[in-house]
């Protein structure tokens, strides 16, 4: 902005008619406006501001007197005042909605960006801690499984008659389906089985820490069980290890469906297996 332009507070006094008695300054500004379009535009913008303050009710008594008794006399300014009221009403109504579904919404959140950033950091941090805890829980589950297995071995060594295993463990590979033509694993579940532990090998693991939806469905497509799991990633690959409640598995064909929650568009992977019940 040109430095020779008068200060806005002087323009304001001019527009409120307070320089009319100071003929030299008033004439200087009037002539300057006549010949300088930049100043004329600035003056109009100060007019808008006076109208805004008038509508806000933030003018002092002297200024309000000048606005009502001088500034608002020309019809052009009355029209400006009227339009300002329409505009304010419009945006006040629109404030709760979004003017532009994308721009308006995000723009309205702009004052909260620092708080949003802080919340994101907290959420990411919590997710990281949760992932570590889940891994710990899985490792503990595996350890318990190993202990249980050791106990069974001990018991079988001590008992003269071999007993039925209390834990059934089976491994599935994603992609092993009837449709693919590969042989389907047959799982034998004894009446004495108390726990069923499933291991599913994941062929193409996503980035570490990305959870998956794992669903167990019957042959008829009925959802039996589901969980959101994190794969255990090691040098040998990635796999899920988890318990399935025994009562869910009866004689028949079943399918596990695994889909990445971070990539809903990706095709889920499946594996089929046959359950046989009996000794």
């Amino acid at each position, binding site marked *: 902005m040109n430095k020779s332009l008068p200060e806005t507070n002087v323009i304001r006094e001019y*527009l409120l008619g307070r320089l009319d008695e100071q003929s030299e300054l008033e004439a200087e500004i*009037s002539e300057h406006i006549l010949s300088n379009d930049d100043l004329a535009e600035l003056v109009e913008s100060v007019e808008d501001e006076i109208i805004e303050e008038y509508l806000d009710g933030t003018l002092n008594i002297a200024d309000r007197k000048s606005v009502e008794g001088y500034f608002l006399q020309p019809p*052009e300014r009355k029209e400006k005042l009227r339009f300002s009221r*329409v*505009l304010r009403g419009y945006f006040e109504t629109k404030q709760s909605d979004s003017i532009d579904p994308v*721009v308006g919404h995000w723009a309205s959140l702009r004052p909260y960006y620092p708080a949003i950033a802080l919340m994101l950091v907290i959420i990411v941090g919590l997710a990281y801690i949760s992932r570590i805890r889940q891994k710990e829980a899985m490792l503990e589950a595996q350890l318990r499984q190993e202990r249980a297995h050791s106990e069974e071995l001990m018991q079988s060594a001590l008992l003269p008659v071999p007993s039925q295993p209390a834990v059934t463990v089976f491994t599935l590979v994603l992609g092993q389906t009837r449709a693919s033509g590969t042989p389907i694993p047959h799982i034998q579940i004894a009446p004495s089985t108390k726990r069923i532990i499933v291991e599913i090998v994941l062929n193409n693991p996503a980035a570490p820490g990305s959870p998956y939806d794992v669903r167990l469905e019957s042959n008829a497509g009925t959802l039996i069980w589901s969980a959101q799991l994190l794969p255990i990633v090691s040098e040998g690959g990635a796999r899920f290890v988890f318990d399935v409640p025994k009562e869910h598995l009866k004689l028949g064909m079943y399918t596990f469906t695994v889909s990445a929650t971070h990539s809903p568009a990706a095709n889920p992977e499946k594996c089929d297996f046959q359950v046989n019940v009996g000794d």
Partner: protein
Amino acid sequence: MPLTPESFGRFLLWLSSEEQQAAREYLTVRKRLVRFFVHKGCVDPDALFDETVDIVVGKIEECADCSNPLGYCYGVARNVWRKYMREHKVTIPIDIDPPSLPPADQGKEQELKCLELCVGMLSAADRDIVSRYHQDQGRNKIDMRQTLASELGGPNALRIRVHRIRKSLRGCVVNCVKRSSN
């Protein structure tokens, strides 16, 4: 007193002997002098402009070779304004309560429709600015405007930017309402 066709013709000829140039000159003189009378808080700036032209037409013989018609007209306009000031020196009593404005005019549905349309035609950046400018109340509003001013390079830059957006919206709405009423 309305300007007669004869006076108007003489005035145009004085501005320029070339018809189109005279029309352009006339519009410039009119715009600037009406704006002057608006700035001076006059009740009827158009009538004061006509009065100015009337006086100028009466003196055309004296200033036939005038090199700056706008400057000459402005000088006359200042005298018209001073006369107006003397005649309209009134004190308007005010109410000390906050301004109580009449409710928005009825039948403004079309204007609001046009406003919606015109806001939609703004650039995304302008729409964002004008929306945020009118956002909130009280302290939050002041804070928002300070934020906008710092984003745009200062209070003057914000003032001018919002003024341009409002002006463009006003023009757009006026045209839209006119078109819809035809």
